[in-house]
């Protein structure tokens, strides 16, 4: 093996490892957003849930010395933000996109305000599985350190798919997302279904935030999130509102984000920022080719058509 080959291999492996590590928060926010959008609402404020979740998770883990308690409380704060979103949006003329942005500002503000004292201290980290134990190479060992939260998220994706297709509640969520009239005819309480879907979605986004502060990068500071929560909406479109595709989309976005640093480590610095934008570009291209002016995007919940078509 020549030196160049090793360079190439290490790039590949760090991209794979990075895809899992960087992709985990993507996975949770996109699953959360997917659930919310399937019920017919867009929550653009998941960035707020993510950042507030990161702060809460870190603070609770610091006080209780339990990382998992941190994860749970991060989810709960996310669910509370989701609850506010859902309760406000069920009123007439309240725009769900604007409320999302407002709650994002509120969530980030609250996190920065309350998180000031937690920038210094060290909280316990989440455990990881060392799947690279068989190898001597530190690169492979680092890349194959898989966090438990990722595994939970990866199992959640097919579970959510199953939920949408087989569970009674999943069918209710889909009915509400497809047609208000059908839901009313079936006697479903639309607002309540959307409330639960938005709260559960917010919970997942909060958990995604706790991954940021408790595992990777692994501490709380104000520059922790690089907009992963905002990207949730793009990811869900990319994944066609299918939870299993959300898993692949998160890995792809995570891998694209990891490609820049990995190339940089072997001396390729050109185009770092363009690689970062590749997923957005790809999503846009896919949207352009799959949309058409006389039908909706495949997979799009019809209630979201209120935003989709006039």
């Amino acid at each position, binding site marked *: 093996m020549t030196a160049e080959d090793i360079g190439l291999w290490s790039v590949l492996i760090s991209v794979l490892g990075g895809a899992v590590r960087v992709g985990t928060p993507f996975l949770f926010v996109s699953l959360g957003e997917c659930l919310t959008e399937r019920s017919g609402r867009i929550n653009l404020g998941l960035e707020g849930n993510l950042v507030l979740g990161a702060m809460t998770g870190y603070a609770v883990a610091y006080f209780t010395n339990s990382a998992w308690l941190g994860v749970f409380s991060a989810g709960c704060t996310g669910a509370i933000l989701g609850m506010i979103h859902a309760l406000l949006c069920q009123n007439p003329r*309240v725009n769900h*996109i*604007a409320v999302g942005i407002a709650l994002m*500002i509120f969530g980030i503000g609250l996190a920065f*305000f309350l998180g000031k004292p937690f920038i210094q201290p060290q909280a316990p980290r989440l455990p990881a599985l060392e799947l690279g134990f068989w190898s001597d190479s530190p690169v492979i060992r680092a890349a194959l350190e898989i966090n438990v939260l990722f595994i939970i998220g990866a199992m959640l994706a097919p579970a959510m798919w199953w939920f949408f297709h087989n569970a009674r509640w999943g069918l209710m969520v889909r009915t509400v997302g497809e047609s208000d009239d059908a839901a009313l005819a079936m006697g479903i309480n639309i607002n309540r279904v959307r409330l639960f879907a938005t709260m559960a979605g917010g919970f997942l986004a909060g958990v995604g935030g706790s991954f940021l502060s408790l595992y990777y990068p692994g501490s709380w500071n104000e520059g922790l999130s690089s907009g992963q929560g*905002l990207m949730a*909406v793009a990811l869900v479109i990319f994944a066609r509102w299918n939870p299993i595709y959300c898993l692949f989309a998160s890995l792809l976005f995570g891998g694209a984000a990891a490609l820049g640093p990995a190339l940089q480590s072997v001396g390729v610095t050109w185009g770092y920022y363009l690689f970062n934008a590749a997923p*957005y570009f790809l999503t*846009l291209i896919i949207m352009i080719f799959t949309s058409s*002016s006389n039908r909706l995007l495949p997979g799009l919940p019809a209630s979201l058509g209120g935003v989709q078509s006039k």
Partner: protein
Amino acid sequence: MLKTLEVVLIPVGAIILSLLLFAIFIALMGHEVSDVFYSLYRGAFGTWFSWQNTLIGAAPLMLTALCTALPARIGFIVIGGEGAVVVGGLCSALVGLALAGITAWLALPIMLAIGFIFGGLWIMFIGYLRHYRGVNETISSLLLNYIAIAILSFLIFGPLRDPSTLNKPSTFAIDETFLIGNMGETFIHWGFAYGVVFCLIYWFLLHKTTYGFSVDVSGGNVKAAQISGLPVPKLILSTFFLGGAAAGLAGALEVVAVHGRANSSLAAGYGYEGILIAFIARHNPLAIIPVAILLGGIKAGNGLVQRADDLPDATGLVLQGIIFVVILASESLYGRFKIFQPKESRE
């Protein structure tokens, strides 16, 4: 008359309620409420000095709010102001660098026009995709924000980087004579005047011309507009262009009035704040002016709160968040109060 009262009283009530909620939050955090409010007021509107800070803060927000307000009038939710600011600022800085050496009287208008045009084309592309390809405008505009920021980062970290800008990579500085300067004796830059003037022009266009009427008709009912022979595609593309152009101009003004070069400060969140301002102003360009000044005031007052009362930097963000959430929620109150309804329509 009663309608006007409703339009004024509901937002004012919402702001009072949000200040109350904020006061409760401050008290819960163990701070002296009256001290914080006093600092906030002094830092925002208390002195001429703070007024100037407030107005500087409001300048870009008026223009980015127009980016959401114009397409909203015809029924589309565009959240791409951030990208248009970046594109406008970047293009105008590049042209400014290319024009080095020519007289400022010529260079400055060209730079502003370039920002205006490229910001407009950027958002018009979203309108084009929406109308001809059915691509959701909200999502494509969000994606284009990231693409714009990535192009900017690529250029300022790579080919266009001024090697002397170590901490904050930027393009080379534009000719100093091209900088736009401040209004009279103040330290408010001319960007503020542009913001007010454009809000007024757009208000006139939307409320006093047949163009504006056609836009409102198309926004209300596309089918009816088409049947009555209105050029709906042209109306859509032009509102998207005008909206994006305002945000692009905001970017160009940030370059010629504040930074003197293009750097990551262009993506400072003005685009996202503009979206909220547009919604709170109910997409009326005239109402955008006071709402933007209010937000500029919160941002300016925040500095003093931080210094005088030892509160975190994020205090202003919390207040902004509360105000926005409450005002947006108050949308559902319109038409609910009987006293605001004209007598004839009462039952």
